[in-house]
């Protein structure tokens, strides 16, 4: 009798904790659906076009946050430092009027040592501010912004002499302009250098992804057919996944065959997508290596890791360097898609938005994986697109929606962090008692 009630209690608790674990994700799903219901101005076309271009701009940056979380550094707001390194590389390439695919490769190459160096410094700082990494990473972003502005507003022109006639230098010869045009790739610039290599229609892309996921699920099912550990719950999830893949594939096939309005959605940049997939694979693979295991053990307990002979400080610095370098590349991908370099603004929000995206996907300060990053990026950007529309249609004021979305960004980060700490503290108390 007693046993049964305990079992039931546990079950109830499990259910409610699932909701608590995913509360942020659920809020965002509800918000996006709500947005579709109230705003009639948003067509599926517009939404998908916006979403796909935003996704391919931001996914790489969000993915760069995973390694520090695994290594126990928490959410690395310091990817702003990486973003700035990427922008320095872009500015150098732009200054020498290089461009095209080779120019882009050179940008990536150039960004590597710059961001690795700054990543190293950031990592050393995190080791000195152990336990307070997250606030330190936020402040280091602001600090680096000061140095960045010193470099671009003052050093360029006063210390490094540049011709005032250059299109990216301010007319008085000191400092770089607020916005720098990156010149379309046809004219030998960086704009769309990556996107324009190859593009396929959106629906074809979705079809391919759906087919790939379907294949993976089938393999998984076949592999685990005789495995008793493969629970019915997981099996059910696999069936649901297969069904949804089939439905999506069906919709795509229908759209392609009838050439419906969905075919008007903006084309998908293939190379960009491949790079994102490559980073996903890289993230998965690195966690299987010795280094990845080190990340994990340091993330779980620095003390135990140290005792078992792992160089904790070094591992944490490597994790930070990786994150910073990836963020630099992510920012380059972001900017080649934007086409202009907002010299003093492009990087400031990157940290917040990427962290919020990851958290929306269900990650926490100690747990993050690819699924969180991908789902989070999709959901967060959906909210970003819908928010002004909701403000417009409910209150007749798009500005309201924009303020609301800022609130959501900060609120989500605050809520997710707060809930996590609160739960950890509660757990700690129970064991202590």
């Amino acid at each position, binding site marked *: 009798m007693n046993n049964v009630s305990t079992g039931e209690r546990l079950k109830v608790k499990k259910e409610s904790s699932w909701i608590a674990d995913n509360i942020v994700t659920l809020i965002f799903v509800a918000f996006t659906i709500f947005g579709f219901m109230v705003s009639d101005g948003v067509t599926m076309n517009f939404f998908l076009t916006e979403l796909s271009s935003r996704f391919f701009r931001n996914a790489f940056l969000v993915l760069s946050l995973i390694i520090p979380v695994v290594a126990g550094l928490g959410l690395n707001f310091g990817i702003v430092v990486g973003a700035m390194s990427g922008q320095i590389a872009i500015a150098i390439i732009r200054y020498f009027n290089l461009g095209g695919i080779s120019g882009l490769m050179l940008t990536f190459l150039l960004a590597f040592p710059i961001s690795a160096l700054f990543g190293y410094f950031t990592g050393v*700082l995190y080791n*000195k*501010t*152990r*336990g*307070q990494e*997250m*606030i*330190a990473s*936020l*402040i*280091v972003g*602001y*600090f680096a*912004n*000061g*140095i960045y*502005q*010193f470099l671009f*507003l*003052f050093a360029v022109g*006063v210390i490094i002499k540049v011709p005032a006639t250059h299109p990216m230098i301010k007319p*008085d010869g*000191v*400092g770089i302009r607020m916005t720098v045009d990156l010149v379309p790739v046809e004219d030998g610039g960086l704009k769309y250098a990556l996107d324009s290599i190859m593009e396929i229609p959106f629906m074809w892309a979705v079809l391919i992804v759906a087919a790939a996921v379907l294949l993976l699920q089938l393999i998984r099912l076949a592999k685990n057919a005789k495995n008793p550990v493969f629970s019915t719950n997981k099996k059910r999830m696999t069936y649901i996944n297969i069904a949804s893949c089939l439905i999506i594939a069906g919709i795509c096939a229908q759209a392609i065959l009838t050439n419906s309005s969905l075919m008007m959605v903006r084309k998908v940049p293939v190379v960009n997508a491949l790079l994102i997939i490559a980073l996903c694979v890289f993230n998965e693979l690195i966690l299987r290596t010795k280094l990845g295991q080190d990340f994990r053990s340091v993330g779980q307990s*620095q*003390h135990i890791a*140290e005792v078992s002979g792992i160089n*904790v400080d070094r591992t944490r610095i490597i994790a930070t360097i990786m994150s910073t370098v990836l963020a630099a590349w992510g920012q380059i991908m972001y900017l080649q898609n934007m086409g202009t370099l907002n010299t003093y603004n492009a990087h400031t929000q990157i940290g917040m938005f990427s962290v919020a995206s990851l958290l929306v996907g269900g990650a926490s300060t100690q747990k993050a994986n690819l699924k969180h990053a991908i789902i989070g990026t999709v959901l967060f950007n959906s909210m970003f697109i819908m928010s002004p529309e909701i403000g417009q249609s409910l*209150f007749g*004021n798009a*500005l*309201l929606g924009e*303020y*609301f979305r*800022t*609130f959501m*960004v*900060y*609120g989500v*980060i*605050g809520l997710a*962090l*707060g809930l996590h*700490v*609160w739960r950890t*503290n509660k757990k700690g108390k129970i064991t202590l008692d």
Partner: protein
Amino acid sequence: MVEMKEKGKFSFKETVNKIGLPTLIIGVFWLILIITGGFLGISMSTLLSDTLKRAGMNGILVLAMVPSIQSGTGPNFALPVGVVCGLFSLVCSIELGFTGVTWLLMSMAFAIPLAAVVGFLYGKLLNAVKGSEMTIATYTGFSIVAAMCLAWLMIPFKNPKMGWFIGTGLRETIQLDAVGGAQILNNFWKFTIGGEKGIIIPTGMLLVFGVCCFIVWLYFRSKSGIAISAGGINPRFAQASGIEIDNNRIKANILSTVLGAIGIIVYSQGYGYAQLYSAPLMMAFPAVAAILIGGATASRAKVSHVIIGVIIFQGLLTTALPVANQLFEGTDLSEILRMIIQNGIILYALTQVKGGGK
């Protein structure tokens, strides 16, 4: 001979330790800037007047850091929470049609209970997230400012002194001249030292700052204040001696939030404008930096740190602007300097925080 040398070295080190490395570096830097400014022919009396004015404006906001640091929750990165309470009271007071001194007093009268309630809730929140107070506080502050952006836009206030010309909502900056509130405290008993172009002493504002400092100083000598400090130094020991730490942390954060609310009212009247919307977003960081420059750490702070810190930091900023403009025309070096010093000093303080550990 050797002994003496060592002794001298020792005392030098001790002096540095006593003053604090950040205070010394930033202070010396400020002095160098002032001397450079003197050579460049910048009016010293204007500089000093501006320094006093800005120190008085920012002083109470910096003072708000003392209770939260002493209670062990770290610098109050959620200062914007208090700030929006103050701003809300301020606009309410305008809406009700108060002007002049009544406006100021009514703003403060609204602000104190409001900030106390909000501070209580905020203290509760901080107790729930022990160990990560600073990060959570920062995001609480950010969220509240963002939420208040929505509120400012939707508040159905009718007073034409604050509204947009079209549509609902409040303006981004509200001129306090319109209610006779601009520099109202500064001008109270204002006098100048050294003739027409001498140093202007904004007596009223400095008095208010002084009174607030005195109250906080006195409070931390009372039984309740000492209990708060004890909880901050060693929570376990304090708990063992029968001090209720959680309650004390809430008390300290109420005090901090109230000081933030009063601080922004004093700041706004000195500035002449009340800035709404995203203006309070980053207000915590300069305040945190100022108290750290004064010699405080993330776990220990005194009222004297506030006074020293705010004068050095604001003095540096006021001096840097004209000096940098004279030396390098057309660059915004002082703003860059502010960012680097402000955030650098916070980072330095964070590296000194104990805990976390391997």
